[in-house]
């Protein structure tokens, strides 16, 4: 009976499997882009640079921005 054998043998004594870069690349790319966008809005929006006018975003996340160590004002 032919069982589906995993490509990388998993055994506590054996080698740890590796996930190919080709498989990882799109996930990593998207995660980095999402992280940069969120870091910008929590960490900097309406400080040095503004996407939206006013100070609502700045004021809403104000305390988080200070306490997470980002330059606020």
């Amino acid at each position, binding site marked *: 009976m032919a069982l*589906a054998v995993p490509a990388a043998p998993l055994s506590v004594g054996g080698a740890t499997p590796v996930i190919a870069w080709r498989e990882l690349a799109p996930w990593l790319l998207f995660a980095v882009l999402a992280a940069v966008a969120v870091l910008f809005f929590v960490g900097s929006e309406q400080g040095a640079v503004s996407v939206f006018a006013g100070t609502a975003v700045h004021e809403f996340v104000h305390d988080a921005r200070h306490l997470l160590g980002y330059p606020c004002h």
Partner: protein
Amino acid sequence: MGARSFLVHGLLAGLVAGLLAFGVAYTVGEPPVDAAIAVEESAAAHEGDGHAHSHDESAGAEAVSREVQSTIGLATGTVAIGLVLGGLAGLLSAAALGRLGSLRPAGSTALVCALGFVSFALVPFLKYPSTPPAVGDPTTIDGRTAAFFGFTALSVVAAVGAVALGRRLVGSHGGYAACAAAAVGYLAVVVTAAVALPGFEGAGDFPADTLWEFRRASLLVLAALWGGIALVLTGLVDRSWRRAVQVADRQALAASL
């Protein structure tokens, strides 16, 4: 154990870490933030200048009340940052899987989280420590923002480069020399940059006790965030690794019958 499961584990870890960071920020961080805002307002009142940056509704035009800032606003910020950093830490742990010497999945995941804390939080904090309201000249916000994010980006790139250097050296020089070269290389880059980049001191006559309390609280928030990610993500990765090993062992046994 594919990219998907690492991302799910990372997002879960980030959610828990974001809530933990909110708890620390609310209990330890809010008192010095309130004290700093009181200093800011009394300074503005003394100058008789209604235009000083104020965070209280008493200023009239504030869009968000202090109560919202210190609860929902604070939690939104910490959870959002927790989710993206947790997800990213999960995927970087997927990349590190089986690529860091003989480290098992739990070991490589914990190392990724530790490097994340050092390169993305601790080292930037040591060069540009967080500033409470009323500290920092608003006219230098552009320069401070560029310097902070530039230095942080350099630190992360240097950490990734250090890991790549270690992997390259491990075959020819062994594990100890590879790790030592990676650590010294990373330190050489960030120390050189920290010396070369400008500082932005200027606390003036802001009370030193409040400044210290705020900075200590800020470092605790960052530690809670990364500690939470490391603890939950490593635990989840280890659990799914053990399950995968069990399944593989059963399949191997079944195939041998």
